[in-house]
C-alpha cells in the first residue's frame, strides 16, 4: 500500500468527523443560547435550574454520556452509533455554549438595556435588537474555541465503531503495522480541519466587528 492510499483511507473518515461536528455544534448552540437567555433574563428559579444543567453536563465526560446513550438508554429508543455520539457531544457542548453565551450577554452592560427600555422598546425587543447583536460578536472568539474542541472530541465516537479518522488510523495501522505513520496522518488531518475552521471563524469575527469598536 502506498502513502497516497494510506492517507486517503484515513481521510475518508473526515465525512463522519464533520458530520458529528455539524450535528453537535449547532444543536449545542441552539440549546445553549435558549438556556443562556433563560439563565440571564429568566429570574431566580430559571437561573438555578440552568446552573444545575450546566453543572451536570459539564461534570460528565462526553465518553461516559456516549456509553450511557448508546448502551443503556438507546436499548429502548434505537439510536445509531453515529447519532448517539453526535447527540451526547451536543448535550455536553450545550452546557459549555450556554456559559459562553451567558458570559457574552452579561458583558453587554445593563445600562444599555435600561436605555433601550427608556426609549420605548419592550424588554424582549431590547434583548433582541440591542443586547443580542452585541453579544453574538462577543461570543465568537470563545465559540471558535468550542468549535475546535468539538471537532477534536468527535474522535470519541470511534469507541462505538463509527469509522471516523481515528478508527481508520487504528485499522490501517494494525494491518500495515505502520502505526506511527497512521496516527501522524490522523493528527495532520485533524490539524487541518481545526485550523481551517478557526480561520473561517476569525474571518467571520472580523466581518461582523463593529467599526471603531474595540
Amino acid at each position, binding site marked *: 500500500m502506498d502513502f497516497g492510499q494510506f492517507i486517503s483511507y484515513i481521510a475518508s473518515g473526515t465525512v463522519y468527523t464533520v458530520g458529528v461536528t455539524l450535528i453537535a455544534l449547532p444543536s449545542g448552540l441552539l440549546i445553549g443560547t435558549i438556556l443562556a437567555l433563560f439563565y440571564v433574563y429568566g429570574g431566580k428559579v430559571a437561573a438555578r435550574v440552568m446552573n444545575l444543567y450546566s453543572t451536570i453536563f459539564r461534570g460528565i465526560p462526553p465518553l461516559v454520556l456516549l456509553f450511557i446513550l448508546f448502551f*443503556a*438508554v438507546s436499548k429502548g429508543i434505537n439510536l445509531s452509533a453515529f447519532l448517539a455520539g453526535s447527540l451526547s457531544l451536543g448535550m455536553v457542548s450545550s452546557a459549555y455554549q450556554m456559559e459562553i453565551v451567558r458570559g457574552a450577554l452579561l458583558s453587554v452592560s445593563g445600562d444599555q438595556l435600561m436605555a433601550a427600555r427608556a426609549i420605548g422598546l419592550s424588554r424582549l425587543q431590547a434583548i433582541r435588537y440591542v443586547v443580542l447583536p452585541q453579544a453574538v460578536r462577543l461570543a465568537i472568539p470563545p465559540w471558535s474555541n468550542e468549535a475546535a474542541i468539538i471537532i477534536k472530541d468527535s474522535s470519541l465516537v470511534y469507541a462505538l*465503531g463509527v469509522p471516523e479518522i481515528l*478508527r481508520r488510523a487504528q*485499522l490501517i495501522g494494525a*494491518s500495515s503495522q505502520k502505526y506511527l505513520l497512521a496516527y501522524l496522518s490522523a493528527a495532520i488531518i485533524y490539524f487541518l480541519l481545526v485550523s481551517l475552521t478557526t480561520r473561517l471563524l476569525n474571518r467571520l469575527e472580523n466581518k461582523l466587528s463593529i467599526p471603531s469598536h474595540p
Partner: protein
Amino acid sequence: MKKYLLLAVALLLVGAILVGCASEPTSVLDKIQKAKKVSVGTSADYPPYEYVDDAGNKTGFDIELMEEIAKRMGLELEWVDMPFDSLVAAVASGKLDMSISCFNYDEERDKTVDFSEAYYTTEDAFVVTSAFSGTIVAPEDVAGFKVGVQSGTVQDDWLTTNLVTPGLLPEANLSRYERVDQAALDLANGRIDVLMGDYVPIQALVAQNPDLQVVYHGELSTGPINIVLPDGDTALKAEVDRIIKELQAEGFIDQLAVKYFSE
C-alpha cells in the same frame, strides 16, 4: 440541598428508563431470521484473524468463517466494526447480534454474554531440524537451547514471561523475528535450535520442509476461541454451534487456518 434533591430525582428518572428498557423476551434467532440479516461485531485490527486489506475491506480467518456461518443460516451479514473492549457490551446490550473477534472464554465475560462452542483451538508447537540432538519433553526444556519466535505474538509473550523473566532462558538466546518464515530460515541455517510458533502455520512449514520436525505441541500461550452470543439465548447458541460442528467436520475451518495462519 435543593440541588442535590433535583440531582437525585434526575438520577431516579434515568434509572427508571433503564429498568423499563430491560425486558427482551424473544430469541435473537427469531429476530435475525425474520429480518434475514445478522449484525456481527468485530474489531478489525487483529491480523490474521480480522483486519482490513489494501482495498479497505474486512478480511481474515474470523471474517471468512463468519461469512460462511451467515451463509449457512441463510442470512445477510452486516459487519459492525468496533473497538475490542466495546464488543462484549454491544452484544450484552442487544446492539449487536453476536461478535467474532478471536475471543477466548473468560469467566467475567460469561456473566453478561454467552459463548459458542470453540470453533478453533490454537496450539503452540516447537519445531527443530533433523540435526537437533537434544531432547525436549516438557515445554520448559527449550530453555537450554537457542530459541526463535515471531515477535509480538502470544508465543513471544509466553517465552518471555515463563522462561526469560525467571532467568531460565538468557535474553541473548531468544531471537525475535518479524515473520515466522524468517525464523524458519535461521533454523535451517543453524542459528537457532528451536522455533516456537502457532501449531497450524508450523504444520504447513513442516509439510514444505521435510528436514523439520515438531517435537512438542500443546496449549501454552493459547486456547479455544469462541463466538460471543447474547446471554441465555439457547436457540441461537444451538444453531451457531450446529454450524460450527458442521464446518469442523467438513474440514472448512482447517483449510481457513492454513490459508490465514501459514503465511
